[in-house]
């Protein structure tokens, strides 16, 4: 049984983000968000397939200017093929988890082994290693607690993995993605029933309004 399936997701990724994943132009942290969300969301999986199909149609039907293969290209490819089948990774064994497998690949373990670091007000985070154009981290907000009040310089996407939170944009439960761009200031508040665990990705550092969080921000990568 896979508990990833059939959950009721109300807040989805945008077409632009899905298209960027399909085209292969997003920063790594955003790709991680897409892979994690699509693992849970059949709607976005179908939309992503449509974006891939657009890529396929463009590749198939649209004129590519002045690209020809080298004269010996086909023979070289056949030679490459005859060297044998490249070793491919065995598919990972899937076991049910709060964390979809793309995320587990980044943590290298499961939820109970994450090395959380406190960032104040009971909130903890774990930064995930990605390329520098954007950042990815896991956040743990205690049940009923608030995240520091913050706005954004860039694009931030926050997806709920466990528990739920509420902010000005609505109520977000497992699989839901909250998308915030530069002009939004919000204060997410975790649902009272359970600690809330989220994946958050951002292409710019968050800026906090309070003086203490702002100082903290300078030495904690948040």
């Amino acid at each position, binding site marked *: 049984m896979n508990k990833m399936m059939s959950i009721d997701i109300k807040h989805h990724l945008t077409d632009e983000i899905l298209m960027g994943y399909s085209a292969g*132009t997003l920063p790594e942290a955003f790709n991680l968000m897409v892979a994690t969300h699509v693992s849970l969301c059949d709607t976005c999986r179908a939309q992503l397939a449509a974006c891939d199909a657009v890529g396929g149609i463009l590749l198939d039907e649209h004129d590519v200017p002045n690209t020809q293969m080298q004269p010996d290209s086909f023979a070289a490819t056949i030679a*490459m093929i005859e060297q044998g089948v490249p070793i491919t990774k065995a598919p990972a064994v899937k076991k049910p988890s709060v964390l979809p497998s793309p995320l587990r690949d980044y943590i290298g373990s499961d939820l109970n082994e994450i090395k959380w670091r406190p960032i104040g007000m009971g909130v903890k985070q774990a930064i995930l290693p990605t390329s520098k154009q954007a950042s990815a981290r896991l956040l743990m907000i205690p049940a009923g607690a608030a995240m520091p009040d913050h706005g954004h310089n860039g694009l931030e996407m926050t997806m709920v993995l466990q528990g739920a939170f509420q902010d000005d944009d609505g109520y977000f439960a497992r699989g839901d993605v909250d998308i915030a761009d530069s002009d939004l200031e919000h204060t997410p508040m975790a649902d009272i029933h359970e600690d809330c665990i989220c994946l958050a990705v951002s292409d710019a550092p968050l800026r906090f309004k309070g003086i203490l969080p702002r100082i903290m921000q300078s030495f904690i990568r948040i």
Partner: protein
Amino acid sequence: MSARSHNVLSRRRSVNFQTATTRLVAVGSKRVTNENKRNLWISHVHRIRDDADKAAFADLYAHFAPRVKGFLINSGADGYLAEECAQEVMATLWHKAHLFDPSRASVATWIFTIARNRKIDILRKQRRPEPEDLTWGPEEEPDQTDVLALQQETETLSKALTALPAAQRELIEQAYFGDMSHSEIAKKTGLPLGTIKSRLRLGLERLRQTMK
């Protein structure tokens, strides 16, 4: 590789690229429709899978290899790297022909995703997180109804793309084949980001409506 496919491989070693290309042009002169062409690509992949058929591979190669190369050059690869990667993409098609599932993607879409993945690995040098359960099989033989449904959807999407106003189509092409983010497209065309985003959205919205 089975003994059977190995024999076929040896037998077909004499088929060269040129013969295959000529044959493709001959087929093309009969005005193959896109639909027939997509069917032909599928049977080509199956012939590679079942018979290690180099003539079928040569047909696919003649059409797709230069396009994959062009895609990679547009994404920032130099000619040498793009050539090498395009060859690798086509070799991957050969090796993974048994994983191709025509109820999940057209041949062109499958090749596009292989090329896109290669681009991220080689050009962007990033790790490439993938959603769960998106392996291309191995499954049982796909349901023919699903294969047909996917072909119809592809045809509808293709027509919708062709019917888009030029400006919207160009933006979608740039998003896929220019390796530019939305903000970079905005810089290039001098349009504000909001306009780009709404145009992209409009383009997709029209696509969706046409598909209804």
